[in-house]
């Protein structure tokens, strides 16, 4: 075992008849709540949090879930994913409040969990999240579904095109882009997640969130434009807001900058007052 894995352990919970894995690493730091991380659509702990999870484990105790396709037939519901995250929290929290972080669809799930557990989630980080799918997102989602249903070869490049900022793509070689496209997961669970993405509406829940919250928008996000993050900033009582100059795929484009935000926020969640807009970093 590499000591730098910080004794990463793998365990699982059973939710709705499905085994849901989660990973834990890092030492507890005083009374700092354990951090629970929720990845986004098409992702996993190792892909979306391949950078953040091991690095955060140097700072504190972290737990990250791999969301799983429920055993039951039928459309995926947000409630099912909320139950999966809730089951992991129940297992790892020891009855104490946690810090919860979600990215993309994971931010939607995290917001819903925080709304449902006002005493169970103390700190909340929502990265590139949203609360109500709008026509702009539905248009893209529709294109994706059409490409998927016709088994179009264009689907992977379309996903790259939407996920990364123009500058990031422009700086890559054709080989690098092909390698990135190849790594994209496409399976039945992804289909279900994309379907769910097209009909998110957690407006009522979001107003119930009491956690100390950091909302992070990505300036060049074409999948969840930053206006959605600003809406969350407006809707959540104890929220502060900041931006990263990145496309939606911030976990790949600017992982270290995101780490800095999470690291700083978790060290002192209330350092900035509710309603603050934190200035972008200027190195």
């Amino acid at each position, binding site marked *: 075992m590499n000591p*730098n894995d910080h004794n990463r352990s793998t365990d699982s919970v059973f939710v709705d008849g499905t085994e849901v894995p989660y990973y834990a690493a890092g030492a507890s730091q005083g009374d700092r709540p354990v951090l629970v991380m929720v990845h986004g659509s098409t992702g996993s702990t190792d892909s979306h949090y391949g*950078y953040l999870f091991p*690095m955060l484990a140097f700072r504190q105790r972290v737990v990250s879930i791999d969301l799983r396709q429920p055993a039951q037939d039928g459309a995926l519901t947000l409630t099912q994913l909320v139950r999966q995250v809730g089951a992991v929290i129940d297992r790892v929290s020891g009855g104490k409040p946690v810090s919860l972080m979600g990215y993309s669809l994971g931010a939607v799930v995290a917001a819903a969990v925080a709304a449902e557990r006002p005493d169970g989630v103390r700190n909340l980080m929502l990265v590139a999240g949203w609360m109500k799918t709008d026509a702009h997102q539905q248009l893209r989602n529709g294109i994706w579904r059409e490409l998927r249903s016709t088994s179009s070869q264009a689907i992977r490049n379309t996903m790259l095109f939407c996920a990364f900022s123009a500058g990031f793509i422009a700086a890559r070689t054709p080989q690098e882009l092909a390698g990135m496209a190849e790594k994209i997961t496409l399976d039945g669970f992804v289909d279900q997640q994309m379907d769910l993405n097209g009909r998110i509406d957690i407006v009522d829940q979001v107003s119930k969130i009491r956690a100390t919250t950091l909302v992070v928008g990505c300036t060049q996000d074409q999948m969840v434009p930053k206006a959605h993050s600003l809406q969350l900033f407006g809707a959540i009582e104890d929220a502060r807001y900041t931006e990263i100059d990145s496309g939606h795929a911030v976990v790949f484009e*600017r992982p270290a*900058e995101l780490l*800095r935000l999470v690291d700083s926020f978790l060290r002192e969640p209330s350092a900035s007052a509710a309603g603050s807009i934190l200035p972008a970093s*200027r190195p």
Partner: protein
Amino acid sequence: MNSIDTGSGTTFTDILIVGAGFGGLGMGIQLKRRGKHAFLILERADDVGGTWRDNHYPGVACDVPSHLYSFSFRPNAHWSHVFSPGGEIQQYLRDSARDEGLLPHIRFGTTMRDARWSEADRQWSVQTSQGLFTCRVLIACPGHLADEHLPEIEGLSSFAGDIFHSARWKHDVALKGKRIGVVGSGASAIQVVPEMAAIASELVVFQRSAPYVIPRANRRYTEAEKRLFARDPSQMDKLRAELFWAGETNFAQRRNLPRFVREAKEMALAHLHSQVEDPQLRAALTPDYEIGCKRVLISNDYYPALARSKVRLEASALQRVEGHTAISARGERFELDVLVCATGFEATRPPFAKLIHGRDGQSLDAHWDQGMQAFDSIAVHGYPNLFIINGPNTGLGHNSVVYIIEAQVDYILGALAHAEQQQVAVLEADAAAEARYMDMLDTRAQGTVWLAGGCKSWYVDTRSRRLTLVWPDYAYAFREANATFHPEGYLQTQAVEATP
């Protein structure tokens, strides 16, 4: 007024800065911009620029992109390349010193010979080649790449040809058509070697251990790009942020996370394979330690230079010199006209530390007999009113040291403001605070590739095996920890005794 002539050739100044490289100039600029003019900068040479003044060997360049390796408060729209030549960096520092009005504050050709704290006078006495200076606050800006290191090699000084260190390049020595030896395979050597390969009749490179080399994504900026930077400076800020965070991402390699170490290694070895076909040469150029343990080098022309027929890679150290003959550790003999020592700098045991004597008269070098250390990487117990910029635990393997220097300048400005507001005459790092800080660094350093990577590097002190040169975390974490003055870590003496 910068200073007062106190008679008998002694010059008093409130703040005395030693060194006019990035550190000293950055400090001076920020004092000046805050309307504080009571400072002098001592510079032993006749020009500003520090390592960029000294290093003018053929091919000299920085391995950090120019838009990041520059002051954040002095963006430069005119960098010629992503990685600009060293001469441009030197010119940038000259322009900075002139434009910010620092030149009247700089005493050139003034070498510090001895600095002593006087407890009675609450000031430093600094003996120099140009007389005695006294000051309340001493700011040492020695740099990590200031004093060249020459290896102890038998017969080296009696070499019958021309010999010089890469940082003391002798441009009057004719090199064309000569048999040249380059000692070393570090950051300077890989820039010198392609230049020498182009003009030498024969070239031999003495390599003690192979470096990892990754591609250098260098290119010229177009006139249109440069004009855009000038017309819309926010584009430079955007680029700087992109370069900074890309650099920060690579800290995961230094932190020794398996996946990122593997990816970096694959990139470096793929570069080697694409540029060197000969299996023997490839083997000799494949490092036997973990990537990042020593500085990762960037070059597109080093490997191709070594692959040329007139170039010989000698995969062992230079051991002995007899007349014109250089003899390697493996016993290979080479007849040479010129020897270039690209053998680096005195980094873990900097010579300036021998000159500075604290409250009890002990030199900093003696005080640091188990390796350099400082509270907040800037102040040392027993050495009151002394701040060191770019001293212990301030180096980076993955990002721009100018960012670190700026954080330290902010820290010192905070210390000066605190002393002024609270009427504190003497600030001295508390021993316990210093020990706690070092323990924190030791904890963070454990398991990093510098300590666990199985190499001998200038980042680690050979006496204590502690990581004394490098900050073992993200650059942003240095700014968060060390850009703000921490009065609670200091013993403070009031300027006027409080009345009971």
